[in-house]
């Protein structure tokens, strides 16, 4: 099992935290993990990107300039990063904020992450809907592990949001759809 | 058997000073040694020496000694005291060391209120390197890098360290002294003792600015140099207590 994904979003969309929760889940399963955030000038203009690699084997290169999977939270970041995705790779988009992609060599999965979050009454949990979609598609971690990570690794001050995050995760898994 | 009326302090090692005749470094060294001996501190003190004329101080003072790089004496003293809070830590610096290259270190040690004793020798000149201008060189005073005398328009004005550091909140005791007479020597010794006692009592940062002579670089005889401090240098650098948490000023 080897998953190599780059999460891209705007500040406040929770892209980094979503990837980190998946990272904790993978660690909980005994897998090897690298989570690497963009820092410095790359984050100017309020963008948030990070690399997440999950593997059963020892991980070599800790960064993925041409990732197998792109998890895009909005159109701006999708446009900025789509050309970097490895030929034949995969893109998971927030369908509420992203147009269908035009690169034909990529597999596209769309999940209405913003709608899911609004439906649950907390716009912030769109990130866990995105995480759920990735977990479903890449099969890199089990739901139980992600739930464990939410229970044990969320910052103290947002602990009360654990149940709604878990719901967002499940709805993301349920509603992610491959574009045929 | 004759009665012994004077003996070299145990606070100094049995080693001849390298200082020029009439230089007051040796007087201040002796005073430090005497106070350390009298207070019973020789086996629980860490001294930090500077770069400058007093660079060999570790050969003279009979305590554990650390030779710091130029200007960093307060940084070394900070660490020595923080790691060894039960020891007496004193640092010894000249005017190039403290007021020029090491200005940041002394100001921040003072601002943090490091509980160590800083002895600052101000003779207004770079002695060891051959008489260059110091930040404390007096207006009009000649030096090898201001051969026509310090010109405020070109070189700015002398640094008044005791005054500058006194505006900070944390220093506990700051005094300027001049051991140019028997009375001045006694006063300086009493001030060193007071500073060490404040440190032992955990009071915080103490600094003694001691006006000293440099007959060699000033081009004076030792006696002329002593008079020069009393008559001229003190006009720029007035003696006095600038800060004393233990006394009403």
């Amino acid at each position, binding site marked *: 099992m080897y998953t190599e994904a780059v999460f891209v979003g705007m500040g406040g969309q929770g892209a980094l935290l979503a990837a980190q929760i998946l990272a904790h889940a993978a660690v909980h399963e005994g897998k090897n993990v690298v*989570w690497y955030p963009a820092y410095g*000038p790359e984050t100017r203009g309020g963008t948030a990107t990070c690399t997440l690699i999950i593997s059963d084997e020892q991980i070599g290169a*800790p960064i993925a300039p041409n990732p197998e999977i792109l998890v895009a939270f909005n159109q701006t970041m999708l446009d900025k990063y789509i050309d970097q995705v490895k030929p034949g790779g995969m893109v998971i988009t927030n369908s509420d904020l992203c147009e269908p992609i035009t690169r034909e060599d990529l597999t596209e999965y769309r999940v209405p992450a913003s709608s899911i979050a609004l439906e649950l009454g907390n716009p912030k949990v769109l990130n866990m809907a995105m995480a759920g979609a990735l977990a479903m598609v890449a099969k890199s971690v089990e739901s139980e592990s992600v739930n464990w990570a939410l229970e044990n690794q969320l910052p103290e001050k947002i602990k009360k949001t654990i149940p709604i995050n878990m719901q967002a995760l499940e709805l993301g898994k349920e509603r992610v759809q491959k574009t045929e | 058997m004759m009665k012994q009326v004077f003996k070299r302090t145990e606070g100094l090692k049995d080693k001849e000073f390298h200082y020029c005749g009439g230089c007051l470094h040796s007087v201040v060294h002796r005073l430090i040694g005497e106070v350390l001996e009298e207070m019973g501190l020789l086996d*629980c003190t860490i001294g930090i020496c500077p770069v400058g004329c007093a660079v*060999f101080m570790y050969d003279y003072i009979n305590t554990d000694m650390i030779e710091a790089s130029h200007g960093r004496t307060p*940084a070394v003293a900070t660490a*020595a005291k923080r*790691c060894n809070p039960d020891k007496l830590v004193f640092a010894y610096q000249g005017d190039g060391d403290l007021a020029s290259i090491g200005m940041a270190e002394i100001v921040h040690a003072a601002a943090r209120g490091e509980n160590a004793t800083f002895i600052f020798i101000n003779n207004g000149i770079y002695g060891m390197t051959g008489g260059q201008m110091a930040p404390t060189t007096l207006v009009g005073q000649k030096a090898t890098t201001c051969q026509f005398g310090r010109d405020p328009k070109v070189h700015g004005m002398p640094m008044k360290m005791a005054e500058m550091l006194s505006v900070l909140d944390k220093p506990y005791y700051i005094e300027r002294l001049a051991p140019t007479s028997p009375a001045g020597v006694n006063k300086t010794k009493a001030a060193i003792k007071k500073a060490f006692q404040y440190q032992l009592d955990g009071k915080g940062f103490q600094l003694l600015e001691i006006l000293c002579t440099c007959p060699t670089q000033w081009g004076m005889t030792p006696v002329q140099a002593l008079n020069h401090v009393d008559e001229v240098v003190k006009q720029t650098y007035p003696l006095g207590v600038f800060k004393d948490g233990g006394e009403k000023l």
Partner: protein
Amino acid sequence: MSNRKLLKGNVAFCYGAMAAKVDAFFGYPITPQNEVPEYLSVLLPEAGKVFVQAESEVAAINMVYGAAATGHRAMTSSSSPGVSLKQEGLSYIATCELPAVLINVQRAGPGLGGILAGQGDYFQTVKGGGHGDYHLITIAPWSVQDAYDFVPWAFELAEKYRNPVCILADGVIGQMQEAIELHDVDVKISEKPWAADGKKKAEKAIVNSLWVEPDKLEEVNRTLHAKYKVAKENEIKFEEYSVEDADLVLVAYGTSARICKSVVDLGRKQGLKIGLLRLITLFPFPDKEILRLSEAGKNFLTVEMSMGQMVEDVFMSVCGKSSVDFYGRTGGNILTVSEILDYAQKVIKDPCGPCTRSWEI
């Protein structure tokens, strides 16, 4: 499983410092190593230890000097421009034979440079960096686990050789998070009878690097270098990966070595006979090992995030017996697996040849 923790490299350095029973940390903020002083500003005082945010890098290294001179386990961390400022202090620490540890989370240079990862401080670190004839023992982590493990190891080396040790990391190691084991460390702290600790002893201690007698100072230099010789005999560490049957051996350290491991995996899948020599100690440098491999007919491709620094040591090690090529990226650009693999394929077909400095302008 549950004793594994997801930690950032910079944070792992801090836990490593606590495991190493560090007495004191002195540092100054600089990206990308800021988590180190931030975490230690909490962890050390909690443990009754010393943390000071110094007024500058210069003050910080001299505080390390002061703490080490009094016999305490002291360390600092910084990133490239800040490490440049520490060089004078490191020269003093090395000359006074004091144990101390410096972490350099390298960023891209030269000058103010950038804040993304780089490996341009190799020369500065392993060749001395400050004035005079001294060296830092230098070890290069390539994972967050190493970030934790190397701090106690660095102190062990520092005390064994009474010499400053540099943990030469980079912005990727510092900023990435990986799962690591915070295992217990058996810490042996050496006796320090030489310390100027203000304790009663037969003879007063003097910590000093001033020797005005030429013969005495030369003796100090010889003593330092005799020590480095012993370190070279005993401490060299590296890892070989698929080297045995390789025609081309990639030589790299830190993040570059991690990337090269992926290059080897991918290259092997394509039938290329390539391997990796991952260097762990950079000083002492494994020149004999590299010579042995070159005598076995292997060519080398040194890969760095620099314009070519470590490649000089590889080049000297092969003694003209095989070919040493170079591939590097700088400016904060991280090497990619595909570009290295492309270059490796080119080098396999057309190596620069023995005694040719391929990396020079």
